[in-house]
């Protein structure tokens, strides 16, 4: 690979290449597709702030006749859907999963990458082997384990089994292999051990990487459905996704409330996207390409 010329500049169909007409066509095409991509978000907002009559009106209504902010309070006052509880559960699960995964996977990745130990390769292969089988397939074996630990319908059952993510540990190992050794050696000279140099030198200098992993883990955890569905048997332990799904398949559906619930469920992630998109994009590029 020629890397000297490897400027981070968009190439391929390069900007500035191609006729004015083809560029204009490209731009218009992108605008149309972008509009299509935004339709579902528009529908969530429109329906969440409409009355049922507006939504089911004979002619298509682009905007609600009266913006119904009251749908928001109605949703949280409805006893049939434990919205507040499930949002709290989701927040706790996502935050604790992110913190726990980061702690366990960075330490494991660093140990594998940096500490020369005779059996390190064997441990690494034991982790690599788990990547062969996606976690969705192991939901049943894991459920067997969790149920014998008595963690069904329990936040521990939702969080702890998901923390030992072989893929994230693998990514961390790859990242720490390329971390400049000189920095750590300087710390070693100053008398820091592995643990000290990891926390004082390596971690503070890896903020971008850690943020990328954290954002990806958070989004994945917030949006996950199968595992919370398996574990969340009682409504006390529902995450917001399970609550939404139950709401969606219930017999009598209040459309504005349903869409208000959807809006509330994606709001945290819209904030993540607004403020942390750089890390998210970086994380996707890192996780996807190595996968």
């Amino acid at each position, binding site marked *: 690979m020629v890397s000297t*010329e*490897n400027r*981070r500049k*968009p*190439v*391929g169909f*390069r*900007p500035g*290449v*191609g006729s004015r007409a083809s*560029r204009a066509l*490209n*731009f218009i*095409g*992108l605008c149309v*597709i*972008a509009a299509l*991509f*935004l339709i*579902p978000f528009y*529908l*969530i907002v429109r329906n969440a702030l409409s009355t049922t009559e507006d939504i*089911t009106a004979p002619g*298509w209504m682009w905007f609600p006749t009266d913006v119904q902010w009251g749908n928001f309070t109605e949703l949280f006052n409805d006893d049939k859907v434990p919205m507040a509880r499930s949002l709290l559960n989701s927040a706790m699960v996502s935050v604790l999963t992110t913190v726990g995964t980061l702690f366990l996977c960075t*330490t494991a990745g660093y140990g594998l990458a940096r*500490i020369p*130990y*005779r059996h*390190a390769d064997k*441990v690494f292969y034991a*982790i690599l082997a788990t*990547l*062969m*089988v996606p976690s969705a*397939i*192991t*939901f*049943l074996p894991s459920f*067997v*384990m969790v149920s014998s630990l008595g963690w069904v319908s329990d936040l521990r059952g939702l969080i702890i*089994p998901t923390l030992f993510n*072989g893929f994230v540990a693998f990514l961390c190992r790859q990242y720490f*292999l390329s971390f400049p050794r000189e920095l750590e050696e300087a710390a070693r000279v100053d008398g820091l051990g*592995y*643990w000290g140099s990891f926390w004082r030198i390596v971690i503070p200098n890896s903020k971008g990487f850690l943020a990328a992993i954290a954002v990806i883990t958070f*989004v994945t955890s917030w*949006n996950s*459905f199968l595992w919370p569905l398996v574990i969340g048997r009682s409504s006390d332990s529902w995450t917001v996704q399970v609550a939404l*799904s139950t709401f*969606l398949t219930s017999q009598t559906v209040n459309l504005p409330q*349903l*869409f208000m619930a959807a809006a509330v469920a*994606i709001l945290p992630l819209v904030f*993540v996207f607004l403020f942390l*998109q750089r890390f*998210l994009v970086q994380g*996707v*590029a890192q996780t*996807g390409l190595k*996968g």
Partner: protein
Amino acid sequence: MAVTDTTAEPAAAAAGTSRRPRRRRTFGGRNLAFWYFVGPFLLGLIIFTYIPVGWSAYLSLFDARNTVTPASEDFVGVDNYVTMLTNADFRRSLITFSVFAAIIVPITFVSSLGLALAVNKVRIMRAFFRSVFFLPFACSYVVASLVWKMSIFAGVRYGMANTVLGWFGIENIPWLFGNDPPWFWLVIASLRLWIQCGFYMILFIAALQQIPEHLYEAAYVDGAKPGWQTFWHITLPHLRASSVAVLMLVLIAAYQAFDEFWNLLPNSGNVPYARTPLIYLFHTSLGTSQDLGRGSAGALILALLIAIVTLFQGKLLGFGKPEGR
């Protein structure tokens, strides 16, 4: 090396891979350090992956209904595997997956690559377009299913798709209720495409930016025309690794399709015409019958199938070599 072993046989030294026991003793602290870094993770991996899979393999040999500790007289050997492999529903779920994969893999690949090229080409508002196409990744499959089922593809007059068709005088279509014609594939495929397309677009953009620019300049000097010619001879060959990665990721994700089938289709996805393997497994093992023995057998069969695919991918990409890169 500070520690030299004067008593070591020359043969051992010549072997080069000798174990150097003295050196290990000298750096004994390293072993301890390794374990307090890697130990907790490995322990969790053993408890929550290795033991469950082993336990599941054990259960798959028993008639284990409603129990995770079957009695020894319930031992049935490979019966569960035979039942699963000869079960019409299970095999049909594999066909459902194949149909789904045949639809979703090519359209995701072409759309995400197309978007990546278009976003890379545009001169203005590039960050905006990238964000818009990536934004659906924030949406869970549950939320998207909700919008698709209750608004866009609602089978009633006020559904968006039916509204638009109505403008052209076309009758309402019950998108999700029925198999003839199988309109539900359109609903399911468009949903998944919307969510994951931007994700793979990001991967392609990252790969596009790694292609050295001078290759294009050289091609233009040699008389190549920008566009199709350079795409075919420069861009596409340089995207080989990412293309294989994207194809595999889309395929493996499709194999695990669960969320949208569960939320969109009637009866929690438990319909004969569109039951994915995971939906079938869920209803077998955690539904009314709670047949953990057969469910475990099915899970291991699926795991084996996907492991074969992943190993094949490893061969293609050279993934999993000792140094990994």
